[in-house]
């Protein structure tokens, strides 16, 4: 019992840690996904809270060893969709909150571009937006995103591609002959974008 290796395990834990302990590690990306879906900081946090409660109370439906992240994202997505159906007439009216929050970041040239990108994302159908957020922003595999959205991998692929195409059009990025075109803020930022954060 006295492990020579890990000394941090609580006395009552089994050799397999409680997978629910991992929920907290997914909360940051769940919040970001929720913001992408709702366009609103407060609504996103409410959505994450609902997701956590649902995940916790039906955790027996989670199959240990399977993809917890996809499972949590699925709950969040489905919760969002059912809320949307309930408020069918209510258009997201909190976009300004998220945009303003981004604008308040000391992100020099990037902030305007990020606002434009955010606004362009909000113009996409939610199915395309979620596919692109999962695959493009969070690096989900096509299969993982398909599992999350309960659809075929090919559907995710085409939704994500359609979303990228729409963004390129909205943001005027699709100017093949002018790779150095910087006449839109997003193009300017992209042209100067460093490799990472």
């Amino acid at each position, binding site marked *: 019992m006295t492990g020579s290796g890990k000394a941090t395990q609580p006395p009552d834990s089994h050799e397999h840690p409680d997978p629910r302990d991992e929920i907290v590690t997914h909360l940051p990306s769940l*919040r970001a996904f929720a913001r992408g879906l709702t366009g609103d900081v407060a609504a996103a946090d409410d959505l994450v809270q609902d997701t956590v409660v649902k995940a*916790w109370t039906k955790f027996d439906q989670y199959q240990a060893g399977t993809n917890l992240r996809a499972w949590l994202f699925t709950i969040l997505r489905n919760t969002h969709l059912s809320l949307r159906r309930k408020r069918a007439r209510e258009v997201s009216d909190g976009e300004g909150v998220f945009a303003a929050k981004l604008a308040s970041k000391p992100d020099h040239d990037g902030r305007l571009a990020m606002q434009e*990108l955010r606004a362009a*994302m909000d113009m996409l159908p939610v199915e395309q937006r979620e596919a692109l957020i999962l695959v493009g922003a969070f690096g989900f595999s096509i299969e993982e995103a398909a599992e999350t959205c309960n659809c075929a991998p090919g559907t995710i692929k085409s939704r994500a591609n359609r979303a990228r195409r729409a*963004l*390129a059009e909205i943001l005027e990025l699709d100017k*093949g002959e002018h790779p150095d075109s910087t006449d839109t803020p*997003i193009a300017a930022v992209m042209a100067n*974008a460093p490799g990472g954060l």
Partner: protein
Amino acid sequence: MTRRDQTKPGKAGDIPPNVSEQIDENLKRLYSDAASEDLPPSLIELLDALRSQETQQSAGDQ
């Protein structure tokens, strides 16, 4: 095979791969910004409450 990424490849409507990569890169920036924020205390409290509720329940079962 010259500069395929700067022209429209294949079927009409496809965007050049470099544009596609740029979009993804910027989306990562956009959403990592939100994901790097501190979690609100209410979320942590919620998890604590769920766990302690369960601990009480399982203690009651025994």
